[in-house]
């Protein structure tokens, strides 16, 4: 009986809950604040000096010594306050974003706000340097606004469905992160310390930042509270709210700017602390199904803030109590919030009911009427472009060679110096081509099966699984060869893929759910990889480059696993192009035509995972190729896979090959990893694609 009652309240939870008296919500707020106080009290006893709880108690009653006081004021208190400031900021920012987009997956992370702010901070450290906390916050705010604006714009403010919003946000985040990593790699001196900070840490030296940013966050909180009533009304829907006298656009814009301001302030204090802004409001909304009145923003906002504080401070407690690095160095707090928060995202995504209008079959009207001859011409041109990219890849680099050198080399007439240069470039070019083909084919397959032109192995978490495997192997066996690496990366990819597939399966595969769970898995994999990299300082530079996708110092043997995977799987996929065509239409057509739907889907996805894993083992993480190549191919020759597959493969090959060539040429003798280049090229393309197809 009570069950029935609570579930009625639960339904009402998302509505402005006037029926709750507010007393129970107030009790929840008090309990949350009490928990914050308790954790904070334990939190200040942790630190790298010998100052302990009894010392602090003596200080409290006025009998402490100077050292205890200094440690408390300049180290323990700032760190605890940083937790509070960041917690409230992220909790409230997450709540605002989720309310504005009416989307439980929206958060500073999934909308790219954190990464935008982080990029802005890193860029200002590189190009300007020596900024005050307030200036940093301002710049972080600009970066965050830019990222959020982009993500919101291409997804029509979230109105066009969960999947588009989250994809737009995570693509924006990936692009921002690629830029940030480029800066970190190119300017290691100016950005020393920003890599670890980039994972989010509460460490503070003194109260300076808190003193500036604490008040900003407090003002943001108060402003949000003033908006509570209008936010409640907006939850009724835009029309309903407008009827009740709410200026919908103004309210929306104000709330989003406020959220970004809060998130940017949090980034300035502690770096991007992952997923706090996602899971704190989610926990509170779950609670609100049981507690009357908690669904109203006047309670929702402060309780989310308090719960976020609990998450942040508790994570920090765990980090310092249990996760000291092997050499006594501290782990960033954000690592724990990410590993705790990413499963939360996966869980929320797995419950997602697919009803999004965003889903569209990845076919393209343009080019659909292309004749046989037209296709042959386009394919030939693409083939020539690929060959040209390979030639350019052989000729450019730190030393520029000429075409004559290449012909001499091919005919065995070149001298030792040039023979050596070309011999050493050959594996890089070949690996780029093979990895490009593998990624493009995998992308085409995944897009067909997911029936979503925005899906790719990287986005559905397969790549992240492969990198966890590969980096994990590097930590355990630093001298592991490429065969072993391909094997373990493959295992990681398959586990990640199996988990995504299994979690997204709820009496049938919903492609939106698959993508959302995959995004969550991608974040989880990235967090685990970050822990592995940070645990091993010696490895980290090597792993950083590898994670950015590099063909550096690769030999011909490194190409074997990808080549084998391609030889085995390309024929299978070539025979299945008709099934892929049918699969990309809808669930019913293939069934009617007697195609074993689930079996084809599983085989196709497993093949894509294998291709991705071998490519990752060979050249590391190369993003966006699996997304851009199939899309461009469809735009050129229409949606039939017998045409899309070969063209996408050639385009992927050219893209990776050119990206690698540019990366090792533009700042020679230093070099940029190929994966950063593909991200820098691919991310804008992706955003443009989202923009063009917006509803």
């Amino acid at each position, binding site marked *: 009986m009570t069950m029935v009652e609570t579930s009625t309240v639960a339904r009402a939870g998302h509505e402005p809950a006037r029926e709750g008296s507010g007393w129970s919500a107030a009790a929840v707020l008090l309990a949350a604040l009490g928990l914050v106080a308790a954790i904070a009290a334990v939190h200040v006893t942790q630190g790298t000096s010998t100052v302990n709880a009894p010392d602090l108690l003596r200080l409290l009653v006025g009998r402490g010594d100077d050292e205890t006081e200094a440690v408390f004021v300049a180290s323990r208190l700032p760190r605890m306050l940083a937790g509070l400031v960041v917690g409230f900021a992220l909790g409230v920012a997450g709540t605002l974003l989720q309310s504005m987009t009416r989307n439980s997956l929206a958060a500073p992370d999934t909308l790219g706000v954190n990464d935008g702010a982080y990029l802005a901070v890193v860029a200002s450290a590189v190009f300007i340097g020596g900024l005050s906390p307030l200036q940093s916050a301002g710049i972080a705010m600009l970066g965050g606004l830019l990222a959020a604006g982009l993500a919101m714009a291409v997804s029509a403010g979230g109105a066009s469905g969960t999947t588009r919003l989250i994809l737009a946000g995570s693509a924006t985040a990936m692009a921002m992160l690629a830029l940030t990593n480029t800066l970190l790699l190119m300017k290691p001196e100016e950005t020393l310390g920003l890599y670890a900070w980039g994972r989010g840490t509460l460490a503070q030296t003194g109260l300076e930042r808190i003193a500036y940013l604490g008040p900003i966050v407090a003002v943001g909180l108060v402003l949000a509270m003033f908006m509570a009533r209008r936010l409640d009304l907006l939850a009724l829907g835009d029309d309903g709210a407008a009827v009740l006298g709410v200026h919908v656009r103004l309210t929306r814009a104000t709330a989003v700017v406020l959220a970004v301001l809060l998130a940017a302030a949090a980034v300035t204090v502690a770096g991007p602390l992952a997923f706090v802004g996602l899971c704190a409001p989610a926990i509170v909304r779950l609670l609100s199904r049981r507690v009357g009145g908690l669904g109203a923003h006047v309670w929702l906002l402060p309780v989310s803030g308090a719960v976020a504080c609990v998450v942040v401070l508790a994570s920090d407690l765990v980090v310092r109590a249990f996760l000291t690095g092997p050499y006594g160095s501290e782990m960033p707090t954000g690592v724990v919030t990410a590993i705790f928060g990413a499963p939360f995202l996966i869980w929320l995504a797995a419950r997602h009911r697919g009803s999004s209008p965003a889903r569209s079959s990845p076919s393209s009207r343009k080019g659909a009427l292309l004749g046989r001859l037209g296709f042959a011409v386009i394919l030939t041109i693409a083939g020539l472009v690929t060959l040209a990219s390979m030639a350019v890849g052989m000729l450019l680099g730190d030393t520029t060679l000429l075409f004559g050198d290449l012909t001499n080399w091919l005919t065995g007439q070149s001298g030792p110096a040039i023979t050596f240069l070309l011999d050493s470039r050959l594996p890089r070019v070949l690996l780029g081509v093979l990895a490009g083909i593998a990624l493009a084919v995998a992308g085409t397959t995944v897009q067909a099966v997911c029936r979503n032109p925005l899906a790719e192995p990287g986005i559905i978490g397969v790549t992240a699984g492969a990198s966890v495997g590969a980096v994990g192997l590097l930590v355990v066996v630093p001298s592991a060869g490429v065969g072993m690496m391909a094997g373990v990366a493959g295992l990681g990819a398959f586990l990640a893929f199996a988990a995504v597939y299994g979690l997204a399966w709820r009496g049938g595969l919903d492609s939106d759910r698959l993508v959302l769970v995959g995004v969550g898995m991608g974040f989880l994999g990235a967090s685990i990889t970050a822990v592995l990299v940070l645990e091993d*300082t010696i490895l980290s530079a090597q792993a950083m480059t590898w994670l950015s996708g590099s063909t550096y110092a690769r030999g011909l043997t490194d190409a074997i696993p990808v080549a084998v995977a391609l030889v085995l799987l390309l024929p299978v996929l070539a025979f299945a192009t008709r099934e892929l065509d049918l699969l990309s239409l809808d669930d019913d057509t293939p069934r009617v035509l007697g195609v074993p739907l689930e079996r084809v889907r599983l085989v196709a996805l497993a093949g894509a995972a294998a291709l991705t894993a071998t490519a990752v083992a060979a050249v590391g993480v190369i993003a966006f190729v699996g997304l851009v190549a199939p899309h461009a191919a469809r735009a050129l020759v229409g949606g039939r896979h017998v045409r899309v597959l070969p063209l996408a493969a050639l385009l992927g090959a050219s893209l990776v090959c050119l990206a690698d060539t540019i990366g090792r040429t533009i700042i020679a003798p230093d070099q940029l990893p190929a994966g950063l280049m593909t991200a820098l090229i691919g991310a804008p393309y992706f955003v443009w694609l989202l923009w063009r197809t917006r509803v």
Partner: protein
Amino acid sequence: MRTTRAATAALIGLVALTACGSSEDDSEGSESGSGGPVTVTDSRGEEIQLDAPADQVVALEWSEAEDLVALGVMPAGVAQVEDFKTWVNTVSLDDSVTDVGLRSEPSIDAIAGLQPDLIITEADRSRSQIDDLEEIAPVLVTEGSDHRDNIGQMQTNLEMIATAVGEEDTADQLMADLDATIAEGREAIEAAGMADATFAAAHGWSEGGSVAIRMFGEGSLLSDLAEELGLSNAWTGKVDEWGLTTTDVEAMTQLGDTYFLYIAPEDNVFAEALPDNPIWQGLPFVENGKVHELDGGTWAFGGPKSSQQVVDEIVGAVTS
């Protein structure tokens, strides 16, 4: 048009080839007089055989580049030349030295272009990278750090390099100079009544809202040198294989009253951020004025020349 361009390209290629051939002949002709064939066993246990002592050498780590210059052989190529100049000032590189890119990912093209007769790198580089380098020239692999005996490791590295370039006598002289500097330093410290003093050494930078401090613990070269001087390290926490660990200001309270030495050629947090910090202000070594900045170009992971500078700087700080 296209044919002419291809022909020109081919021609230029050919000219380049002839140029290559002749320069190879030159180097063998002019330098082989300075010594006969040399054989040296590197840290991998590989025997490296050269027809003559190497003179066209590429050094991919700074300590080895420093050793070369100290031995009187100007390297042909060094990784991150500009950064070398910031961090290492005991020796200076000629303008003729070519930058071959990042220490972690040196440019194979640039190294090959120098036509070296020896490449020196450190053991923690990847297998595939060393394989690639060996295609260009013999590779001498040194061991970067040995936390049990850094001074011994430094000497081993120096001697390997000296053998390869035919400068064994200079190497002996460099080590003798270092020993003499250490002996003088120890006497000076004893004379100043500081024989039992402790020290702590650090490098620091800002990290978002906080200051990160990297301590030179036991097992670092700097610490080994200071211990040779009769001092003992006040930092006893965990360290990595280079003898280093990263921590925060609060941990400085564990050091007690000691001589605090720091190196900060860039982002000098010890002079800028920390003086305002109450913990820092209350530390006994800060109150007693025992904080000393070492010369910014003191490379604490270098060869005998840098080590001499480290010793001089430490002695100067402790006896001032």
